[in-house]
């Protein structure tokens, strides 16, 4: 227990840089008597890809919610490029893209209409080209005129991905993006995420899928009971032995 905490503390210290794109300090989120997130610090540079694993109820979604401005922290601060963000900050929402296992899509709008709608909310000017380029990128050009309810789950998820990245966010937050994806959709997602990482974006992903989670990560954390119980840079991780590491950390904490 104590060694794990010490390691975590060191990892956090070494992660603290002034140039950090996304930085969180002492984030806490309480729901009445329940503490979902219990003091998390993190600091991520451009091009970093943090994967967070953890059992159900560890507060992973709450953490993402706070980073993405969907949820007001009970305590603590979030900064993007050094600028402290408040919950009512509109500019924040321009810099963050959120993709959850739910698509945030309207079933009775077509794929194109969904993207256009969100594009208008984000105040994007070059909507026509942008929408068609994104649809093309996720392989849905031929389905642009289909209502979302007529699309398969995999297609919806790809469309949701296009929606989340429509405004070219600096920071991309992913909550269980692989849930229920067919192999080809998972492949599209993986390629897009890889491009994001290599294109100097900052990505935070929450997932249960150990294999998919490790594939792209530059850093890995295991969240248990609202805290990072374990954190490493990806190079230091033995991919094959990770599963036993995970179980050990979760059980010990």
């Amino acid at each position: 227990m104590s060694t794990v905490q010490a390691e975590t503390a060191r990892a956090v210290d070494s992660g603290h840089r002034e140039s950090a794109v996304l930085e969180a300090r002492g984030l806490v989120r309480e729901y009445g008597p329940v503490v979902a997130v219990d003091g998390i610090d993190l600091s991520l540079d451009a091009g970093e890809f943090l994967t967070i694993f953890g059992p159900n109820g560890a507060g992973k979604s709450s953490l993402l919610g706070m980073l993405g401005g969907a949820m007001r922290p009970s305590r603590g601060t979030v900064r993007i490029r050094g600028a402290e963000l408040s919950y009512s900050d509109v500019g924040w929402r321009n810099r963050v893209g959120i993709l959850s296992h739910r698509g945030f899509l309207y079933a009775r709008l077509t794929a194109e209409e969904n993207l256009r709608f969100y594009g208008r909310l984000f105040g994007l000017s070059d909507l026509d080209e942008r929408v068609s380029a994104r649809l093309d990128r996720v392989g849905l050009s031929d389905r642009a005129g289909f209502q979302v309810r007529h699309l398969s789950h995999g297609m919806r998820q790809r469309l949701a991905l296009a929606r989340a990245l429509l405004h070219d966010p600096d920071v991309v937050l992913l909550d269980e993006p692989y849930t229920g994806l067919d192999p080809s959709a998972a492949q599209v997602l993986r390629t897009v995420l890889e491009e994001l990482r290599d294109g100097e974006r900052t990505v935070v992903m929450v997932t249960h899928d150990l294999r998919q989670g490790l594939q792209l990560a530059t850093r890995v954390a295991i969240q248990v009971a609202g805290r990072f119980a374990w954190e490493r840079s990806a190079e230091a991780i033995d991919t094959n032995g990770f599963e036993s590491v995970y179980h050990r950390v979760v059980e010990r904490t």
Partner: protein
Amino acid sequence: MSLYLRQIGAIVRKDLLLELRSRERMTSMAAFAVLAGVLFSFSIDTATVRPQDVAAGLVWMTLVFGGLLGVGRTFHLEAQDGAFQGVLTSPAPKDAVFLAKTFANFVMLYLVSLLVLAVFALFFGLDVGQNLRWVVFVLGLGSLGFVALGTLFAAVATGTSMGETLLPVLVFPLLVPMVVYGVGSTDRLIAGRPLAEVEGNIRMLGAFALAAVAAGAALFRFVVED
């Protein structure tokens, strides 16, 4: 500013388009209006009461109950697939979201209220002819006030475990003044009284609608915050 208006426009367009495609809410509200007209017709003993005398009150009650039916579902459609979360995490200000949702609801309810008026004119033999424009205007103000409060509290009710069943408890006490002013002016306009007699009522109705919209726009962000 123009971005603000564009954002409002986007949400309004999206809401109306969705309604046009699903027709869920309009259908239920319209069916309710017609059926209420039928039931009310049978609930009045024409030997003792002249239907025209009570019609104004019934029009407003139909509007309130029918409106609750549609407005209460405002955020249900949004909640499917978490779409409303997408709207809330977009840079659109919360008051813009509220104004847009209110406006879209207003368009729907206003259409229904005109239908209600037509239905009651038909079933109760109302002669609205001479003050028609003003009756239509009064119904518009009423719909606006109702929709503003309804949208705000629909968001509250959707966030609770009781859901829509909570909505009437929250909204009805607040709607009393609207009903008083609305019925007061509609009643007299239908009876062919001069406009001057109801000017005060209409002004109060307008003030009520304005206050409701302003309060909703100011408070909505506290309701949808997570």
